[in-house]
């Protein structure tokens, strides 16, 4: 059953990468990039159980947090054009 879950996650990964390549706007690509990150975490968990070594989960936690930071950085850049945007400096 782990093999079936891994196969499903691989198909989902392929679809998400296709959307990242095709997507006409930046937001499509950012969405697909976020999905690739979370699917990589799930693939990691299933793969750890598939090979009998579930010690890879620490990396999954790292990926989860990094996914958050990376996507929020992209969005912040796109909205304000500056990564160190300070709303109080505008006034």
């Amino acid at each position, binding site marked *: 059953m782990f093999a079936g*879950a891994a196969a*499903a996650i691989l198909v*989902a990964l392929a679809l998400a990468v296709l959307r990242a390549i095709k997507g006409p706007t930046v937001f499509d690509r950012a*969405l697909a990039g976020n999905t690739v990150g*979370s699917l990589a975490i799930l693939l990691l968990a299933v793969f750890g159980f598939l090979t009998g070594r579930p010690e890879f989960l620490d990396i999954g936690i790292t990926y989860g947090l990094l996914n*958050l930071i990376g996507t929020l950085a992209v*969005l912040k850049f796109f909205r304000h054009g500056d990564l160190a945007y300070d709303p109080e400096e505008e006034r």
Partner: protein
Amino acid sequence: MALAIDVASGLLIAAGSFFILVGALALFRLPDVYTRAHGTSIIDTAGAGFLILGLMLQAGFTLVTLKLLFLLAISFFTLPVIGHALARAALHEKIAPKLAEDRRGRGRNSAGDGA
């Protein structure tokens, strides 16, 4: 008892895989950014939730279960927030959502006579 755990975790993992496939298909096939954001939220909450619950049943009461729970908590709370932030940023950029009327040629974004 072990057989019951195996069957239950097998069912949960199968449900999780199904939702992951559905979410990825939604990401690929739906026509608009806002509708695609639904698909990714499905993957992150339902797909990841069922899959990790099934894996936790397989692992029993060890440290691995605790780490899986932590992973689930992170995934559950941060990834839908990212989806919402993306949708909001897209709205700020004034990307117009595709309405059903557009596809029939009668909406306000298309050249129809019902404007």
